């Protein structure tokens, strides 16, 4: 009985090795990486994501405002923040990369507000990792948070978040 169990165990290990060998032989050349912007079901509606042009405005916001659908406003002593989600998807046609890295950078410096994606502060002039091992072919939600101190100047928040994908 014990011997049979041992034999079965041995066969299981052999199957594992066989599968590893087959997996190894599957490497291919020719690799196209595509990064796309996607709508997150729980996030604000993005323009340029599923539409050819246009944009969706959050409207005018303050710490006492009602957050628009897909966004939340949180307040704390001395500041308030706006949080929403967007999503990205990367595909790779073939090749030896098993995941990708997503970096983010602000287009221009912001003296008042703090920008974060997935909890990582986003500076200007330097791309930082906001996701290190993104899975291909998956729509992956990204959390965007903008913290706004009380007393900051009124007006539009005009900046650009540069997202960069690169294969690992």
């Amino acid at each position: 009985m014990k011997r049979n169990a041992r034999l079965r165990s041995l066969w299981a290990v052999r199957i594992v090795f066989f599968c590893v060998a087959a997996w190894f032989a599957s490497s291919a050349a020719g690799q196209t990486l595509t990064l796309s912007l996607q709508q997150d079901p729980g996030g604000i509606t993005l323009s340029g994501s599923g539409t050819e042009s246009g944009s969706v405005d959050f409207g005018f916001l303050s710490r006492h405002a009602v957050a628009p659908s897909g966004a939340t406003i949180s307040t704390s002593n001395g500041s308030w923040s706006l949080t929403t989600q967007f999503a990205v998807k990367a595909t790779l046609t073939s090749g030896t990369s098993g995941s990708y890295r997503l970096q983010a950078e602000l287009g221009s410096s912001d003296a008042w507000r703090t920008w974060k994606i997935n909890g990582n502060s986003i500076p200007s002039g330097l791309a930082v990792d906001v996701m290190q091992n993104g899975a291909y072919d998956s729509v992956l939600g990204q959390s965007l948070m903008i913290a706004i101190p009380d007393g900051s100047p009124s007006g539009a928040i005009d900046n650009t978040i540069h997202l960069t994908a690169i294969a690992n």
Partner: protein
Amino acid sequence: MREGLAAVLLTGSLAFVSAEARPAVDPVAHPSSIIRTPSVSIEPAVVELDAGAGTSFLREISVRNGTPFELQFNVVVEDVLVHGGKRLFRPAGESRGSIAATVVVDPAALVLQPGQSGRVSVLITIPHETAIRAVAIFFRSRTNDASARGPAISLNIGALVTLRLSGKPDLFSGPVLLREEGSRISLVQTLTNRGSELLIAKGTFALVGEGGELHTLVHLPPTRLLPGETTNLEAESPRALPPGRYRAISTFASDERLVVREASMQLGEPK
């Protein structure tokens, strides 16, 4: 108290940079080919070079604009380093033995209309002494979209160029860590490249029952590790498992090295 009023706008548009050069080769693609979900593509995403010190390589990299907007990119080359087990990107010339500093990109900027592709040629020369084994070729936009009334999201992309010189990789795997997740088992394994060349590890996680029956076999995506780089790989049994004792076998291979680790655990109450 003055409150900050913010008109916040998210767009899928891309930021603009002034570019001196037009795409080198490809003509404007048909407007009907524009992807409705904005995207950018790069080919090849990874260039793998078997190199010798002092040798040069010329490669072409093409980028496609799958957005409804004109895109203007600067091509930026950075060295890929490892510090504390983690991958870092550093500007050309900042690091000793910088390979990025030797790279010549032509043209150094691209303007792509919607649906259009463009390509650049990349000339890479390997320094005689360098510990660097990868560079990144980024296509980055640098300025804000002047037409946006609020935050815009810009899509950028990069290609990874890896080098193998005369050293050797050395795959090391830590112990398999098992955790009970309800009626499932999750596995975590640390992989490190202790060698002086990059490696690509491929492997599987297997869960074997008491009688030797195979319950789960998970193929993990290939993992590229630069010298000194460490990563944690995780997997979970895709379906619920009956209570019992399980043996986890982690098998990873790279070049001619095979690394096998085992661990076992009791799921649920023992009989």
